[in-house]
């Protein structure tokens, strides 16, 4: 009896869900959405175990994220660099590559942007040139740092996962040395209390949109424009077609006359360029100097966001905003409900876990199986060409 009752409930729930899905054409978004819901439910249980009312905690979190115009601006500002690092991951995924190196590419891009921004002649250069020059510098820095593992993969077969992890270390410690060192003095601003570079030229600073914490600047438009540009490139250009083809089937690409190695090198280099650009926009718009610590984990979170967005450049925009807002809102939750910021980190990790292991979500929410998107294959397949 109860069985049939459950079935009826299941059926009506399924019908209800189907109507929403059809109305919003949500089919491809279902797994990420359910993954988020599920993670918050588990996070809520966790909070309840600590002895805090999860609804109070989440209410504080939501107000921390979107409670005032300042908070909204701060959440958006927090999200901007994630867009770049997620694009880096997504583009590499499309080419069948797993770029773990966004972390290092951000550091190198941020450093080159700050370094170029402090060049003496920049102070006399009007903003319309100075800002693009700084952004371009960051882009080139990231490009080079992505190009290296791409070239290694194409020429020697060295797997990009391994080489980008190593390059992350090289970037981290290299950059730290360049910025920390007092003797010889390289890029350190000796007047500052923390190790950082000198302030970039005033002309190279991206205009501010809101004086929030962190401040919101024009970089958000740059990054969103890049999302649309990449979406167009992937969808409509021959280069995009080649990239996706290589990602789906390198053997068939080779057979069809596509230069697979060239695509691999370009995909890694451009992937790094997206990260580098994101770092440059942060240096130029947020800090006005380069401080290595500010980029910690942005590259790694890019992996999660790209997976959540299923490597779709447009979907990366809301996914990044969700990610950044959660981090921006968490302090208020800690303040008001005494729930550690780490809980948000745990929820984020669970979202990724459920997106990656989407069979769990499909089972719990009784979704019909569908042919998995390519992104999972990219993320789970470690086999070389």
């Amino acid at each position, binding site marked *: 009896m109860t069985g049939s009752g459950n079935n009826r409930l299941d059926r009506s729930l399924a019908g209800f869900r189907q109507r929403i899905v059809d109305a919003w054409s949500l089919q491809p978004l279902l797994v990420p959405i359910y993954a988020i819901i599920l993670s918050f439910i588990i996070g809520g249980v966790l909070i309840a175990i600590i002895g805090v009312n999860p609804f109070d905690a989440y209410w504080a979190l939501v107000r921390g994220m979107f409670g005032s115009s300042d908070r909204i601006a701060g959440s958006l500002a927090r999200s901007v660099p994630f867009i770049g690092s997620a694009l880096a991951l997504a583009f590499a995924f499309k080419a069948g590559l797993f770029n773990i190196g966004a972390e290092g590419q951000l550091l190198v891009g941020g450093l080159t942007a700050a370094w170029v921004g402090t060049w003496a002649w920049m102070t006399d250069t009007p903003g319309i040139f100075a800002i693009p020059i700084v952004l371009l510098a960051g882009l080139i820095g990231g490009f080079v740092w992505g190009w290296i593992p791409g070239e290694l993969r194409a020429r020697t077969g060295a797997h990009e996962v391994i080489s980008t992890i190593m390059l992350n270390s090289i970037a981290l410690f290299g950059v730290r040395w360049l910025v920390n060192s007092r003797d010889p003095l390289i890029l350190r601003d000796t007047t500052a209390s923390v190790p950082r570079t000198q302030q970039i030229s005033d002309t190279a600073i991206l205009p501010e949109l809101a004086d929030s914490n962190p401040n919101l600047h024009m970089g958000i438009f740059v990054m969103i424009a890049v999302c649309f540009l990449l979406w167009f490139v992937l969808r*409509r*250009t*021959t*280069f995009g*077609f*080649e990239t996706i*083809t290589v990602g*789906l*089937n390198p*053997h*068939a*690409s*080779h*057979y*069809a*006359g*596509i*230069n697979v190695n060239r695509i691999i090198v370009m995909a890694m280099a451009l992937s790094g360029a997206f990260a580098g650009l994101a770092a440059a926009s942060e240096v130029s718009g947020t800090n006005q100097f380069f401080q290595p610590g500010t980029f910690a984990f942005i590259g790694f979170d890019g992996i999660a966001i790209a997976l959540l967005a299923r490597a779709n450049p447009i979907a990366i925009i809301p996914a990044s905003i969700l990610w950044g807002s959660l981090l921006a809102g968490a302090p208020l939750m800690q303040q008001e409900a005494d729930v550690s910021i780490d809980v948000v980190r745990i929820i984020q990790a669970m979202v990724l876990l459920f997106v990656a292991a989407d069979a769990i979500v499909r089972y719990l929410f009784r979704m019909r199986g569908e*042919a998995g998107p*390519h992104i999972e294959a990219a993320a789970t397949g470690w086999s070389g060409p």
Partner: protein
Amino acid sequence: MSTADERTPVLEVFGVTKTFPGVVANEDVDFTLHQGEIHCLLGENGAGKSTLMNVVFGLYQPDQGTIKVRGEQVQMEGVHDAIDHGIGMVHQHFQLIPVFTVAENVILGDELTNGPFLDLKEARRRIREIEEKYGLAVDPDIKVGDLSVGEQQRVELVKALFREADILILDEPTAVLTPGEVDDFFGVVRSLVDQGKSIIFITHKLREVLAVADRITVLRGGKVAGTADPKTATQQSLANLMVGRDVVFQVEKGEAKPGEPVLRIKNLAVEDDRGVQTVNGFSVEVRAGEIFGIAGVEGNGQRELVEAVTGMRHNVGGTVEILGINATKLPPRKITELGTAHIPEDRNKHGLVGSYTIADNLVLNRYHHESFARRWIRDHHAIHKEAESLVKQYDVRTPAVQVPVNTLSGGNQQKVIVARELTGEVEVLFVSQPTRGLDVGSIEFIHNQIIALRDRGAAVLLVSAELDEILSLSDRIGVLYRGRLVGTFEGKEATREQLGYLMATGATPESEQAS
């Protein structure tokens, strides 16, 4: 017929239906295997042969229907149940571990132990016993990786017999064997039956069915299309039953009108992925307007040869000249642009991007041409139009050109490749295993397309493991053995026996010296 019916049935399948999402793989199938018979299960690819056997072997659970073994109704929950009921299966793709010895492979999953240790001594003794009884000579201590394909198959048989199977399911067992090995294999099968085993022999090769079967069941579209007696059946009648309509067997082919040599390969040497030189001084000249067929047992350098001449693999020596241009070191796209086309051996690995639409697959090597892209911007409209016209022209059965190509049947997938490759100016065609695993209708269609291309004056280099295909299409035939041509024949003069012997030994009976 009447003698077979008097025998005791050892395996009976009643009304089995098995559906997969969107596909009815088996529908109300009845099937009976009698004691001591060889029962051939014949059908095209996708007819439901493998599904039915996987149901019998416990790999799939049927939606409906019952299975009886020796008159007793059984429930197959898994492979172990099937093995417990004395059913053994030799899969088309061997399930062997190359670095293990024969004995280790045989006992794998059913390990004989002596305390905590493997009892390989006892295993060896029992394997020898089985080998003697059924005439399956393989050394139990040799590593499986060092065995020939035919010997590996014997190991699979020993594995099944070791588990005391007396109902043996053989899934396309001859697909990987040379003609000579096939005859030996039939001998083994006969001796198994003489010793009281019962055998289900799955195949789509009509010649073999008539040579070996005691009884024949034909599946078509998941249903039993009929049963036949090999004494009265002919290849023609079986083919008609398989396809459901009259099949023209002999390819209609006019005289070749060969012109100038357009493909010249001299002393080509190519290494495989492991660095072993598998093509070794291969030379040939193919003229415009002729089909040159390369016969040979698989693994004699066919794959590396074709990949080298199409630019997909570097060669380590020799020259390739296409239409008077030195193409030895050119990359694939440059070679295509000379006026060549390539129907690859492995359609899923090389020929198609499975999740791409039919339309994108139809322009896979031309997406950058002016007609499909304005500078760097792809013209989806033009691609769509081209796809619609090719799908019509090449009779690809699909609801729309925007469906993923991996939703098509093998035959239609191959038609997509053929359509893509044969469109435009093709002066040299490289084609490898063009009809592997396809249904009779698609084979007919593809053969006719290749001949039509020849008649338009193209040179065709055809590589195939199917001797019948080589014989019916080729104007000239070369036999590839260990990476070089060991004999060339006029297509009309070559016989199966001649070619088979040469393929197996690399020498003609008269000249045993050469190797």
